[in-house]
């Protein structure tokens, strides 16, 4: 059967067909839909983990116990999971095990552009790189047998365009693979130093076997178009190269990319006058090929950053610039992403903005990173998941050495980020007697990646009810006495709680408590707790509006200013009646429909 699938859907399907028993992930663009799709197969136990390290560790346990298992994450997630990865690389597997890394050349939705192909060499594990949806399915299906044969976790490297592009895919059937027998084996799985030293040699033996395999792997092959010019490429760059250059060059297509095939690459270089190596991010194939070959053109010609799209390749190799219809820049203005109408982050950032001069805001990863933009401009730095509390703590330590400056840190993260790595960060601050203000924007969902459930949402990935992690209870249990919850849509209360925290000479936690406007699943008591949630609308009484634009400072996309009438109105299609603007209006011109 043929279906049109994204790379993410195809890789989930491939894992399903390979008989996978267990899957775990933390959401992260562009990897999120892999576990979402795995979660639709009743044969697979699929779980959202609170972070990538936990996801990979669960997968490691599942493999040791004999199940086929898969973890998926975005590139920066592998940094979080690197600790277990490097030792699992030593122990090897029982059931086949695959780690999917979804890299982001061009940084469409990420904070950096790290090339996770480096992890394969670093951890000494085999790596596959699909170029399209069909290969995503076929390769991952192959990778589980491969993992068991070579006794190693497999790194499966995808990129944004492979993950999120759709193509025609031929589906197969699921192979029911029996769970392998579990036997105690200290010498394989207990990596104390004495055993680690033995395993280290096993890793080297495996690498040697992999170096033999890569020369004859069916995923590494050349395409002869009778040209004296060759192109070596892997992943999406291979498709881009075909699009740009077609049959004018020969190709060496690499799908199994660690270890790289020494003989195949050297022979291909010898057979061609010039060899272009087209790869996104780091010059990994290039540096390998240059060891023995001089006729190579790589990052000396192609950009070191961004995607190697066909226009880039044509511009670099053929000096060809294609021009389309001419643009008139006066016909458009910026359209940055923004908090949704009814977003519970709005009220909090509106009130915090009034303290702008006194505070330094330590930010984190999530929708609230949009507070860096207009009209809030409320974020001094943003590093990685869970870093706001800990980096805020370190900064406060230094600021306190200059007490006359009186700088106060407000650290901000969401509920999912708190469960991810924020708990440790907060524990550090309270343990060491830090005095920062720590805000948890609890919207009961993992928002930015598309409303995935998490340990605080009340649901698991299959949509079944589960425990709701008690954020307030966690904060109190680690020793924080000053913990307050506030409805972020009630501005007076938000203002009061921020003032309360600012005046304390002690660590505090503010939990804003209101669900994401896009959250899909609610338990019945939620509707009672969040009274009249999005059931109402607000409007502007045009007779009372004086056009002062005070309401626009809350940055709601439902508020429209008419420059001719000099009045504001509210778009009734998008307003959900959060009442934030209604509380801001100094002329009481904003009212509730029907009241």
């Amino acid at each position: 059967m043929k279906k049109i699938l994204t790379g993410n859907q195809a890789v989930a399907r491939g894992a399903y067909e390979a008989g996978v028993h267990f899957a775990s992930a933390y959401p992260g663009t562009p990897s999120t839909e892999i576990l979402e799709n795995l979660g639709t197969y009743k044969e697979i136990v699929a779980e959202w983990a609170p972070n990538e390290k936990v996801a990979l560790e669960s997968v490691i346990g599942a493999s040791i116990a004999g199940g086929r298992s898969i973890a998926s994450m975005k590139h920066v997630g592998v940094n979080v999971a690197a600790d277990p990865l490097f030792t699992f690389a030593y122990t090897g597997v029982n059931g086949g095990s695959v780690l999917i890394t979804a890299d982001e050349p061009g940084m469409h939705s990420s904070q950096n552009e790290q090339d996770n192909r480096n992890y394969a060499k670093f951890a000494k594990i085999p790596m596959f790189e699909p170029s399209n949806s069909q290969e995503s399915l076929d390769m991952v299906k192959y990778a589980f047998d491969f993992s068991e044969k070579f006794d190693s976790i497999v790194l499966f490297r995808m990129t944004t365009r492979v993950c999120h592009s759709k193509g025609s895919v031929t589906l197969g059937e699921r192979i029911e693979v029996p769970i392998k027998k579990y036997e105690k084996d200290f010498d394989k799985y207990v990596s104390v130093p004495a055993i680690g030293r033995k395993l280290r040699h096993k890793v080297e033996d495996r690498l040697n076997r992999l170096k033999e395999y890569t020369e004859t792997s069916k995923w590494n092959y050349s395409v002869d178009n009778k040209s004296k010019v060759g192109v070596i490429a892997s992943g999406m760059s291979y498709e881009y190269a075909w699009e740009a250059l077609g049959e004018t060059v020969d190709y060496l297509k690499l799908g199994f990319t660690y270890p790289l095939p020494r003989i195949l690459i050297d022979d291909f270089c010898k057979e061609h006058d010039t060899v272009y190596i087209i790869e996104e991010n780091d010059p990994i194939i290039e540096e390998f090929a240059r060891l023995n070959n001089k006729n190579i053109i790589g990052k000396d010609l192609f950009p070191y950053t961004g995607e190697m799209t066909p226009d880039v390749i044509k511009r670099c190799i053929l000096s060809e610039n294609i021009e389309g219809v001419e643009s008139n820049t006066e016909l458009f203005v910026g359209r940055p992403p923004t908090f949704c109408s009814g977003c519970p982050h709005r009220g909090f950032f509106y009130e915090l903005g009034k303290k702008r001069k006194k505070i330094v805001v330590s930010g984190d990863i999530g929708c609230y990173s949009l507070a860096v933009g207009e009209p809030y401009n409320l974020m001094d730095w943003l590093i990685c998941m869970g870093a706001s509390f800990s980096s805020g703590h370190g900064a406060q330590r230094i600021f306190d050495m200059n007490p006359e400056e009186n700088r106060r840190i407000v650290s901000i993260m969401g509920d999912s980020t708190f469960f991810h790595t924020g708990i440790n960060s907060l524990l550090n601050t309270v343990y060491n007697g830090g005095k920062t203000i720590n805000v948890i924007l609890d919207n009961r969902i993992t928002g930015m990646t598309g409303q995935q459930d998490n340990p605080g949402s009340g649901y698991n990935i299959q949509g079944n009810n589960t425990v709701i992690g008690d954020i307030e209870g966690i904060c109190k249990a680690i020793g924080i006495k000053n913990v307050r919850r506030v409805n972020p849509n009630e501005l007076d209360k938000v203002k009061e709680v921020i003032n309360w925290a600012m005046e304390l000479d002690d660590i505090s936690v503010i939990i804003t408590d209101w669900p994401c406007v896009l959250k899909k699943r609610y338990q019945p008591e939620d509707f009672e707790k969040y009274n009249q949630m999005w059931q109402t609308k607000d409007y502007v009484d045009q007779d009372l509006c004086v056009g002062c634009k005070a309401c626009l400072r809350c940055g709601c996309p439902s508020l429209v200013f008419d420059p001719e009438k000099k009045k504001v109105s509210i778009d009734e299609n998008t307003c959900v009646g959060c009442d934030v603007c209604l509380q801001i209006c100094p002329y009481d011109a904003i009212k509730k429909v029907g009241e």
Partner: protein
Amino acid sequence: MTKSIKLVGVGGQGTILATTLLSAALVEAGFDVKMSEIHGMSQRGGSVSSEIRYGQKVYSPVIMKGNADVLVSFEQMEAARTIDYLKKDGVLIVNNHKINSMVTLNGKVQYPENIINTLSEKVKTYKIDATDLAIELGNSKVMNVIMLGAVVKAIGLDHLNFEKAIRENVKEKFIELNLQAFELGKKQV
């Protein structure tokens, strides 16, 4: 020969469903199809785009500047923003609708005037009142399928089986509405 269609709009306008329906019908008709979209941050009210390429054998899922045969814009300003993706002899199909961005909402700058007229002087343009028609049909969200109807008529793909694509990709209770919207869209060209 590979054809390239780029669809642009504002997060939440349903570009992805329109692209999914179009690609489903093209696959059904035997074309090799690739489609690309970017998820994540831009979804929160920002500019969005998805891309579809079809032919005998398609390699790249992305469309380069100056390479789109057809540019479909669900919003006026987004057409102006992405017009340089369109080939000089390409076709623009634009929804006659304006959505403010944060900077025009708060009155800092004005929403640009005369977008469609200016663009139509440069390139063959179909202006569709898709949002108004969708509201008349009773659900502003089917604007995307009205636009799809107009697109397939304008570029001569209306012989493909879109009814099947709609039935297989749209939630049951919205199928009839979307079929109506599709037919209405075709009549606009």
